[in-house]
């Protein structure tokens, strides 16, 4: 009976240590699992893939450092796909602390593309192929206001350059000029985009969300209010597989699976110990 008492009272530090080990070992030994593509992620990919080349796509950075490991890999994959399809990227964000991650992502992928390109036409230029409008407060009011005129909120970009001097923005005035909004969400901003830009102005939306937020997005997907959903690190791994560019999403899948198995094991052990000791107490 001592065994059952012990397993129902395992020191939390042992659990943390084991969790750390099952996460670190697959990363160090670069273990990889095959990734199965789910329907919501495939829908997101197909929708972006089927947009006419050169479409204007807004990416909204609505996350910060605390969600970066989950969302940044999907953001990089989405950028790779969009640039491969020659779509024009308009970056903005509802989370002030998240904008640097948007800028880092743009720098990473544009440098990657430009190092491979052989001509000016294949290269990516700021102002022509992508812009970063930065952060503006206002949230819902701003989302509604952008349906009227972008310049009411974004007279200048992230660097203080007037948007009228940027060729990409010359014909962008409101949501009518936008083919798709990709919301990368760690909070409520995704709901707001769907309610205020999607429902009111008919803007097409794809959501990339943390694991915490993703379950709340499925009903929008079912009601066809969004065109696709990339949820959590699993979704990021699926997207990396689709764009054929393995990154930290795929690298984290073995660690994720092992950690889940370990947690299941601990839940079973804890319950086994609880019921065994309870029966003894009841006697």
């Amino acid at each position, binding site marked *: 009976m001592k065994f059952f008492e012990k397993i129902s009272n395992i020191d*939390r*530090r042992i659990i*943390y240590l084991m*969790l*750390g080990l099952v*996460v*670190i070992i697959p*990363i*160090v030994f*670069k273990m990889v699992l095959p990734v199965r593509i789910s329907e919501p992620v495939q829908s997101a990919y197909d929708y972006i893939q089927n947009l006419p080349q050169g479409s204007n796509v807004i990416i909204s950075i609505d996350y910060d450092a*605390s*969600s*970066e*490991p*989950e969302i940044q890999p999907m953001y990089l994959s989405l950028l790779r796909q969009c640039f491969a399809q020659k779509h024009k990227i308009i970056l903005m964000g509802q989370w*002030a*602390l998240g*904008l640097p991650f948007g800028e880092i992502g743009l720098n990473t992928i544009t440098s990657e593309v430009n190092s491979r390109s052989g001509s000016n036409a294949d290269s990516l230029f700021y102002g022509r192929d992508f812009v970063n409008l*930065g*952060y*503006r*407060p206002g949230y*819902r*009011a701003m989302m*509604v206001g952008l349906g009227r005129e972008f310049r009411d*909120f974004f*007279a*200048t970009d992230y660097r*203080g350059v007037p948007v009228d001097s940027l060729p990409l923005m010359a014909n962008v005035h409101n949501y009518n000029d936008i083919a798709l909004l990709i919301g990368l969400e760690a909070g409520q901003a995704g*709901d*707001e985009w*769907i*309610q*205020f830009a*999607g*429902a*009111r102005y008919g803007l097409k939306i794809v959501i990339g969300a*943390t*694991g*915490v937020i*993703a*379950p*709340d997005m499925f*009903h929008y997907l*079912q*009601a*066809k*209010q969004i065109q696709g959903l990339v*949820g*959590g*690190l*699993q979704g990021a791994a699926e997207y990396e597989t689709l764009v054929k560019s393995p990154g*930290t999403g795929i*690298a*984290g899948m073995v*660690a*994720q699976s092992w*950690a*889940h198995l370990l*947690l299941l094991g601990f839940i079973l052990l804890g319950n086994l110990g609880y019921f065994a000791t309870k029966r003894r107490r009841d006697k």
Partner: protein
Amino acid sequence: MLQITGTWIAAGLTLAIFSFLYKDNPFYKMAEHLYVGVSAAFAILYIWAFDVWPMLIEKFITEQGSEKWILIVPAAFGLMMLSRWIPKIAWISRWSIALTVGIAAGLGITGQIQGVLLPQIRGTLVPLTSFNNILMVIGVIATLIYFYFSAVPKGAFKVGARVGVIFIMVAFGASFGYTVMARISLLIGRLNFLVTDWLHLVK
């Protein structure tokens, strides 16, 4: 050199935060306070650089015509919020708060009806030709029955409510499962940073 220094600082702070898993300690406290302080300073700079300066001050200076005078209204409401620092006139800030709450409520109501309620009702009115559709419609009806509190649950009504509870529990379970996945993902992200960028154990 700058990148190496940054990586070492980030690694040190990550380990300081992780040390809380063993027990509370001064390293954890230092990292926690540093995070709060840096975040607050960063947010203030952002609000100044992307909001107050370009949308209020610069706009007022550069814009021509009488339209610019409308900017005095949001500026006044903004200044009223600062009255909270002076207890005697703190009540003035309620006007700004009332304006914010009013706008949020107005937008919220229209957003919920136009963006959630109506599309979701439309999304539920599906042909019962597949198992998924049937399951979804049963789930919606059973959950609505569970949340109907104006009658004592008896007979078929009680069965409907019980089925509703099962659907709600499954939804909670799925949501919690996703949350666990999210938290493990954050751990993976940090440990990946430590072994890859800091220790260079993975090339």
